[in-house]
């Protein structure tokens, strides 16, 4: 009787929540792996096993390496500025500052806006002839790039939007972490006559390094999954210059219905994400100060 109740209890508390988790998370991950060894095209009911053909095709195609290059470029140039600006803003938000809540909310507000809506607004801001950015650049007689229609600048436009949206988010983490640094540390370095920059270097950066590591990993995983801003602003163009791995995956799966190729690419994306997370975890042991 007791055992039966125990089993029932488990079925209830573990079984029910596991249904959605299995149906829409674990199971699809496995099916995706399985599909990557087939040539299924979604429409026809039958398919053949093609071994590792999808992987060799992907790994030998130029499109893949171009998308990989774009993904790395996009990731590095969104993560680095997001983290630097985030830390800088957090340093400006000192404890006891008048209007702290107000400034913090303003700086954070981009994070809650829908990426789709704001990407449309930014497409307007990036308009080459009448857009806000180019008009402002014009005031200072700076060069006015074509932004979204030029394959040299389109990715930068996407990067700017992404950094704009995420910097405030990084700031919140740093602000929390900075508030935990004991004041004595600053006082000691004040006595030693340390400059502003020295204090940043010797106190702030080492002490916030666990947060930096966390932000780098999460932002990298996030950058690999960026889609909305690319879809709205450039659709991967011009000339594939903003096509990331994930966007390529979307095009293969839901534009060309080449499910075999797409799921092979998904597996590669998963592997890259996994390796990234693990390697950073181990690297952290060397340079993160806990």
């Amino acid at each position, binding site marked *: 009787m007791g055992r039966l109740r125990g089993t029932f209890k488990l079925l209830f508390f573990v079984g029910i929540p596991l249904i959605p988790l299995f149906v829409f998370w674990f199971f*699809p991950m496995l099916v995706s792996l399985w599909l990557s060894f087939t040539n299924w095209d979604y429409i026809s009911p039958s398919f053949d096993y093609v071994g590792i053909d999808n992987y060799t095709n992907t790994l030998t195609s130029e499109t893949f390496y171009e998308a990989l290059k774009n993904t790395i470029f996009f990731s590095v140039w969104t993560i680095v500025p997001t983290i630097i600006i985030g830390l800088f803003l957090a340093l400006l938000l000192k404890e006891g500052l008048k209007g702290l809540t107000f400034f913090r909310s303003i700086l954070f507000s981009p994070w809650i806006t829908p990426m789709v809506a704001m990407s449309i607004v930014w497409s307007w801001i990036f308009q080459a002839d009448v857009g806000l950015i180019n008009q402002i650049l014009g005031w200072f007689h700076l060069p006015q790039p074509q932004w979204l229609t030029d394959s040299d600048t389109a990715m930068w436009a996407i990067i700017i939007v992404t950094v704009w949206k995420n910097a405030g988010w990084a700031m919140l983490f740093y602000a929390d972490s900075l508030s935990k640094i004991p004041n004595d540390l600053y006082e000691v370095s004040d006595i030693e006559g340390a400059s502003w920059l020295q204090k940043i270097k010797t106190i702030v950066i080492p002490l916030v390094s666990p947060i930096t590591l966390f932000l780098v990993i999460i932002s990298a995983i996030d950058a690999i999954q960026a889609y909305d801003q690319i879809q709205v602003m450039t659709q991967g163009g011009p000339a594939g210059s903003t096509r990331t791995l994930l966007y390529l995956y979307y095009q293969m799966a839901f534009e060309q219905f080449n499910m075999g190729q797409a799921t092979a690419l998904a597996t590669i994306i998963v592997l890259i994400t996994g390796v990234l997370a693990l390697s950073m975890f181990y690297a952290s042991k060397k340079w993160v100060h806990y």
Partner: protein
Amino acid sequence: MVNGATKPKRFVNYLLLILFGSVMILPLVWMFLSSLKTSDEIFAVPLTWIPSNPQWDNFSRAMELAPFGLYIYNSTVTAIFIVVFQIISSSMFAYALTQLEFKGKNLLFNSILITYMLPAAATYVPSYVIVARLGLLDTLTGIIISNIASVFTIFLIRQAFLQVPKELVEAARADGANDLTVLMKVMIPMSKSTIFTAALISFVQMYNNYLWPSLIVSSQEKYLITVGLNRFFTTQGTFADQWPLIMAANVLAVLPLLILFIFLHKWFIKGISDNGVKG
């Protein structure tokens, strides 16, 4: 710097905050100003900041071209359903993880932990087929049930449940409370603030979700705001003089979240710095 607060330093500090704050809200302000302009004003070079005669009817004209009210309603209702189901199932699961003993508990938790890092996009092809097989393509139900699984909410609530003092649970059990009562009367009330933050953040993420819903829904009356907005942009964006209307539509889409944020900003900020929410 950090806590030296001489006057000129404080002045520079404020100056920088005002500068960065302005840059951060400039796109939002520009969106709002543009939505009130005429198509001549919006294309003016040099630019005009303030519309000379605010075109408030841009909003009603945008809503005549596409049912944005319906889109926002669809998004809100869908997001609320998802959040409610997420919270219920995650609370049950977090209860099992923290209060019950069973074989393979650690394995189960660790495998969830590992897959948390993996891109959700990797599940899209099979999940799409599953939604299709369930006959739920082009339904809001399809979007709702495929989003109930939330590793993030499970983590957050588990974390909160771990903080609940053991004595409270033991006292409740001594009074003859069963598991469901302990969950409802002890664990959830003790973790109210975490659950509320999780719900809030999940709501924003689901309201803003685009890629997955755009695959599921195809008929206009089922569009979520993100899907409807982007369709509106791709159809109207080719007509240059429609830009004020597109901006008005953007304002409509962003407004519910901005209002939510203005009222509840403390919850967002506290929740994110305490719990480490994925962007």
